[in-house]
């Protein structure tokens, strides 16, 4: 890397002028939303990025990202445009001040949210032998986030080419960091087997030289944590500075760049004047350009080729008399063999144990280095997988119990689901997240919940469910090849069952075609005949098929009540076309799910039907009682739905 004092001062001046201009524009009411400026902290960015190569290194920044962006190849025009919602912006105004994505630069607004993603990218680079390092920039506020420590632990274990920069400005928004921090930061961060250095930022030249050494070490394959003591000269956001004016005043007095200007340093004087001009021109260039347009509201990427020709592709094979966990194991094996960037992550998934449900048995032995038995850190597991996916790889992460996936909700909802849209379609997250869901096993309140309903209403996420009616390999493979984040719900009662290749007694399978290339069509069975259409439409998914089928058979045997029976594959997004046709014929619909019906998966499906069907129809939801799932067998059975509850619902709407 080559850098000079002059060049560093120029960059710092550009950042300072940009940030001050922003604050001016805010004060004048010319900017909508919010912003976080880094006046006083410019050297951190300028000195570090002088040592990075934008063609191969990757940078993750945070809410206070303008300086980092401008140092890593960004331009003030595009950044102004992004913040002011003008054409020619970075992410078409979708990201705004905090959510930038250009080249290998990413920023987002959740404290610590990008740290595991950065680690995932570094993991990918290391395993796939790619050049370059990954940098994650955080502030001292992030020291309060657990995800930081989950990630440091993993970065230490895997010895990732990851550089973490803590810009320690002493203030977390309005709270002095010292008040919310116990112990010694360096000793704390030093506990992960990663080298830590803490120093004050004064001369940017010295800092850049230091970073030359640090980045060289990281390029050599060692993680590094750099704490930089710095000072934020202006407000956290816009006008929310509650610090004593004397403190801020002394900050200005100690500011290196200000000192150079005060001392009439010719480089600084010249650079500041040039920067002022550059920023004014940049603003002028975009302030009259047209506003951004929303354009496509697609939150999901389209796959290169259709995932399924029609729903028959999802049917189990007749010649496989094998349990679901074995079939999943074989499918993972095939994908590890065929797709070099498939990586498995999860707790206890390596041999000899091979996962609590034996889905990954034998794979860590057969594919060394490709099955990561992680610490118990759900958020980091998903974050790491997000980073792997951001690199274009195909991570398959396992969450041992669906209850635990809630711990990773930030990585799922704020990161995986939002990235494609907020980064204006520039990135895809082909993440596969297998979650082990449901009860009927006596594992009690925190190991039995169905949590898919929480994720079935998040734009940018696909939630698909395996059932005894599905071919596990076909569904898993589609989830892996899907360019979007997919939560694959695997009901734990399924693992020891065998898929059913023959339709339920009295039913015929009717193949349906997906509405778009990226859709997972529902399986449709019907007991109706050309002479008589069905009486009731029953929709279910996951582990409830056997009970639903028992109930339907009972009704068929008793009164020859005919059913259109849908086993959903994709719980979200929802394509209701085939179901709509059916309910128009039957005027009766029952949605059966294992979790509570209120706020459940079925609620939205039924709402959609209600909007589309103008004639009156009867609808019922069958699900668990709205309480946590108890442990003892008899009361667990009372809480979870059973065949009788399904029968009652059917009988009610037949009356």
């Amino acid at each position, binding site marked *: 890397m080559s850098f000079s004092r002059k060049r560093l001062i120029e960059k710092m001046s550009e950042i300072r002028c940009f940030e001050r201009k922003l604050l001016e524009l805010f004060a004048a009411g010319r900017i909508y939303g919010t912003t976080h400026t880094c006046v006083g902290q410019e050297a951190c960015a300028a000195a570090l990025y002088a040592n990075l190569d934008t063609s191969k290194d990757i940078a993750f920044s945070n809410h206070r990202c303008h300086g980092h962006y401008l140092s890593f190849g960004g331009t003030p025009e595009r950044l102004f445009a992004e913040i002011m919602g003008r054409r020619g912006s970075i992410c078409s105004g979708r990201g705004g001040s905090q959510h930038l994505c250009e080249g290998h630069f990413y920023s987002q607004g959740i404290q610590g949210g990008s740290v595991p993603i950065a680690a995932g990218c570094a993991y990918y680079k290391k395993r796939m032998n790619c050049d370059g390092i990954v940098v994650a920039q955080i502030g001292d506020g992030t020291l309060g986030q657990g995800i930081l420590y989950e990630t440091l632990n993993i970065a230490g274990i895997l010895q990732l080419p990851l550089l973490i920069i803590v810009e320690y400005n002493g203030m977390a928004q309005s709270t002095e960091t010292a008040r919310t921090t116990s112990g010694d930061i360096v000793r704390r961060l030093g506990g992960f087997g990663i080298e830590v250095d803490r120093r004050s930022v004064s001369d940017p030249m010295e800092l850049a030289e230091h970073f030359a050494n640090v980045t060289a070490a990281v390029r050599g394959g060692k993680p590094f944590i750099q704490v930089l003591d710095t000072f934020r000269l202006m407000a956290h956001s816009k006008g929310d500075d509650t610090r004593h004016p004397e403190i801020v005043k002394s900050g200005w007095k100690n500011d290196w760049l200000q000192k150079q200007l005060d001392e009439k340093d010719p480089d600084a004087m010249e650079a500041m004047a040039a920067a002022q001009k550059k920023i004014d021109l940049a603003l002028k260039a975009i302030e009259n350009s047209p506003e951004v347009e929303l354009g496509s509201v697609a939150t999901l990427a389209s796959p290169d080729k259709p995932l399924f020709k029609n729903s028959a592709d999802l049917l189990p094979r007749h010649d496989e008399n094998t349990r679901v966990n074995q079939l999943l194991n074989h499918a993972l094996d095939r994908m590890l063999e065929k797709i070099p960037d498939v990586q498995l992550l999860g707790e206890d998934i390596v041999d000899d144990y091979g996962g609590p449900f034996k889905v990954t048995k034998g794979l860590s032995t057969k594919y060394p280095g490709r099955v990561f038995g992680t610490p118990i850190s759900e958020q980091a597991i998903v974050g790491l997988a997000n980073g792997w996916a951001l690199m274009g790889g195909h991570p398959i992460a396992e969450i041992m119990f669906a209850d635990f996936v809630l711990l990773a909700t930030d990585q799922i909802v704020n990161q995986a689901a939002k990235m494609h849209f907020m980064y204006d379609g520039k990135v895809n997250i082909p993440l596969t997240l297998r979650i082990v869901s449901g009860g009927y096993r006596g594992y009690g309140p925190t190991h039995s919940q169905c949590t898919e309903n929480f994720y079935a209403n998040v734009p940018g996420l696909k939630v698909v469910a395996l059932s005894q009616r599905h071919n596990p390999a076909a569904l898993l493979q589609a989830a892996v090849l899907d360019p979007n984040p997919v939560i694959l719900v695997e009901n734990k009662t399924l*693992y020891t069952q065998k898929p059913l290749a023959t339709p339920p007694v009295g039913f015929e399978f009717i193949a349906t075609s997906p509405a778009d290339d990226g859709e997972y069509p529902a399986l449709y069975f019907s007991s109706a005949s050309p002479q008589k259409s069905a009486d009731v439409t029953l929709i279910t998914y996951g582990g409830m098929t056997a009970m639903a089928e028992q109930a339907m058979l009972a009704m068929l045997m008793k009164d020859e009540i005919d059913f259109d029976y849908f086993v959903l594959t994709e719980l979200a997004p929802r394509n209701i076309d085939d179901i709509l046709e059916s309910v128009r014929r039957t005027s009766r619909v029952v949605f059966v799910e294992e979790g509570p019906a209120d706020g459940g998966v079925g609620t939205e499906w039924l709402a959609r039907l209600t909007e589309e069907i103008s004639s009156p129809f009867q609808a019922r939801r069958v699900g668990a009682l709205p309480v946590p799932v108890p442990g003892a067998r008899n009361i667990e059975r009372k809480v979870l739905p059973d065949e009788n509850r399904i029968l009652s619902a059917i009988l009610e709407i037949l009356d």
Partner: protein
Amino acid sequence: MSETQIIPVEIPRQTANDDTMFLLEWLVGDASQVRAGDAICKLESSKAAFEFSAPCDGFLHIISAAGKDLPVGETIAWITSSADRPGQWPSKPTHKQQHAAAAIEGDLKITAKARSLMEKHNIADDAFANLSLVREKDVLEYLQKNPTTAVDGDKLQPHSHLQLQTAKVLTKSFGTIPHSYLSKHVSAASLESAVEKICLKDDILISLSDLLVSTIAGILRDFPKINSTWLDAGLMLHREIALGVALNQNDGTLVVPVIHNADSLSLTEIAGKIRGFQKRSIRNRLTVEDLTGGHFSVTTMIGTGVSQVFPIIYPEQAAILAIGDRWGCDDNEYYTLTLAFDHRILNGAEAGCFLKAVCDRMLQEKK
């Protein structure tokens, strides 16, 4: 020990996930002596394979072969305190799937509506053997295809297996053989007197039917075309004289046992054969040999009040002779013999010759 102790060996619940286990192999042989704790078989759960130990001392009697997935709680063997294998194992409530996820498999299922319709029309389950679920529409479809079955008040009596077999034979015969008929009336007094004379002369008891069968047996060799089978390739002339004798059974079905090598048997022997057939048919003891291999048949309606019978030729035969009951009045009473013959094989003259010969020969006996 007063009583033999019998302890079941059951598939254990090893994990919460597994409702079944795979029985990999037996490590000890059937009927071998085992000690409590001895490894007796290898089981495999979804997690791992493990050795399973005998729960007590005794003799192991295996009832489930290895290589199967078996439900938790299933008895796979018994351990008895004595070496003998008991004739019967203790009864035990059958394994119930705890989860409603139990497979819906197996037996023919019939909906309530279908069942009631089937009962009304007396349709057996077998009629739907190709279905897994029988619904009302299936029964209606069946009724439409079987129009003899009818509406309210009518009752369908299902065919017996034998009846279906008989129907098949008769349909085939009547559908493929061009039948032609000749009848001849014979003086009843003359025939009866002929029978009576034989009885008195030989001190035996025979019937007119016996005499008829015996007579045919004696002359059939002179009429080779009567003792033949029409084949596409040609006419198969049979060596053996094998006569079928139609017998009505109590249930209304007809059987035709065969007297093999009838020409070598005396009248008394033939009478004895026929008596034997009658007895055995009542007890359903006729053998396959009894019922197969006939080349000509005789059917009699004597004692039924029916004067003339037009019988159907049995498949692969050329003719059948029927005799009706005595008819007429006073001194002019007759028995009418009717010959049904395959017109492809015989013309009327040939058949008439045979019929005349039978009648003449029967009357000759009195001389």
